[in-house]
């Protein structure tokens, strides 16, 4: 088991010194099945790099309860959750729960903010990494939104016109 940012793939873009900086502020955390890593809506999340186990990402849909969006396995490529919270001041947009025993490296949001305030190059580099992740995801989401609009049009769902317009307006440029 290795919970040291110095030895975790996600941090490979940092120099040895910069990784040591994150080793100082990061915490090794463990969750039991059902425990919450990130709670939707409460506050901006901290960043978690999953080192073992599986988590479930879910979201509340108004009038329709909670929906599961994804399951993330630490054994797979995508092992970071909560990264948006480091750059955002809004509450988390989804809940992340442990599916089994989960271990992770946590970079607490407030520690990251303090590093940014102090002008830490390591923190800025991590921010750049997160920005790239967000840019990719936003582009994909925008494409999906356009597909949705086309699909609604194709189906002639005039009942959903208002939402189609809403989607167009919110569409990011």
């Amino acid at each position, binding site marked *: 088991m290795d919970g040291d940012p110095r030895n975790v793939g996600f941090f490979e873009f940092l120099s040895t010194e910069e990784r040591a900086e994150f080793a100082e502020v990061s915490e090794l955390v463990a969750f039991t099945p059902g425990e919450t890593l990130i709670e939707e809506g409460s506050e901006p999340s901290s960043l978690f790099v999953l080192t073992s186990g599986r988590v479930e*990402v879910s*979201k509340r*849909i*108004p*009038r*329709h309860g909670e*929906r599961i*969006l*994804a399951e993330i396995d630490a054994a797979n490529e995508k092992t970071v959750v909560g990264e*948006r919270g480091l*750059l*955002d001041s*809004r509450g*988390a*947009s*989804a809940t992340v729960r442990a599916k089994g025993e989960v271990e992770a490296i946590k970079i607490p949001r407030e520690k990251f903010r303090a590093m*940014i305030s102090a*002008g830490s*190059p390591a923190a*800025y*580099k991590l*921010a*750049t990494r*997160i*920005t*790239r992740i*967000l*840019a*990719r*995801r*936003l*582009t*994909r*989401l*925008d*494409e*999906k*939104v*356009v*597909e*949705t*609009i*086309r*699909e609604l*049009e194709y189906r002639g*769902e005039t*009942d*959903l016109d208002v*939402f189609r317009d*809403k*989607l*167009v*307006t*919110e*569409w*990011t*440029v």
Partner: protein
Amino acid sequence: MQGARLEGLPLFSNLSPEEQAEIEALLEPASFGAGEEIFEEGSPEKYLYVLTSGTVKVYKEIFPNQRQHLATIHAPTVVGELGLMNETKAAASVVAEEPVEALRISHEAFLEKLKSGSSTAHKVTYEIGRTLAERMAKTDESITKIVARLEDARSDRDFDVFRNKLMQEWGF
């Protein structure tokens, strides 16, 4: 003139005067006449534009041969920052509504700076990241609403597949 050009733009507001000068060195002036295209949907984006005066309109071809107006943006503002971080083709067209004065930074020059470890470049991307995080929160809200509405309207089973596709891309 020097130093004042980036004033009032959140993207550069956390830079020291020295760092601002470093960015200024990358700036080239650019101007567009009314109706001229700054970005063309589907073409590569090569520059980030700092609009210093004028107004632009954003269009996207959502349905074939039908350009939909998405937004109107007034200077001072920045366009092309998503493309800078994503190195993708322009997802929408940006057209000058009236004469536009701008300063542009080539993606290539900026990314080169970033690669060389420039803390100034990293500070700028940090601000871009904050903007993107905010946009993503808004997109999330819109999608939540549309998903809820699709759930309300689930009159046929095909909708499930379609909704699921939308949700899969979502992540968070």
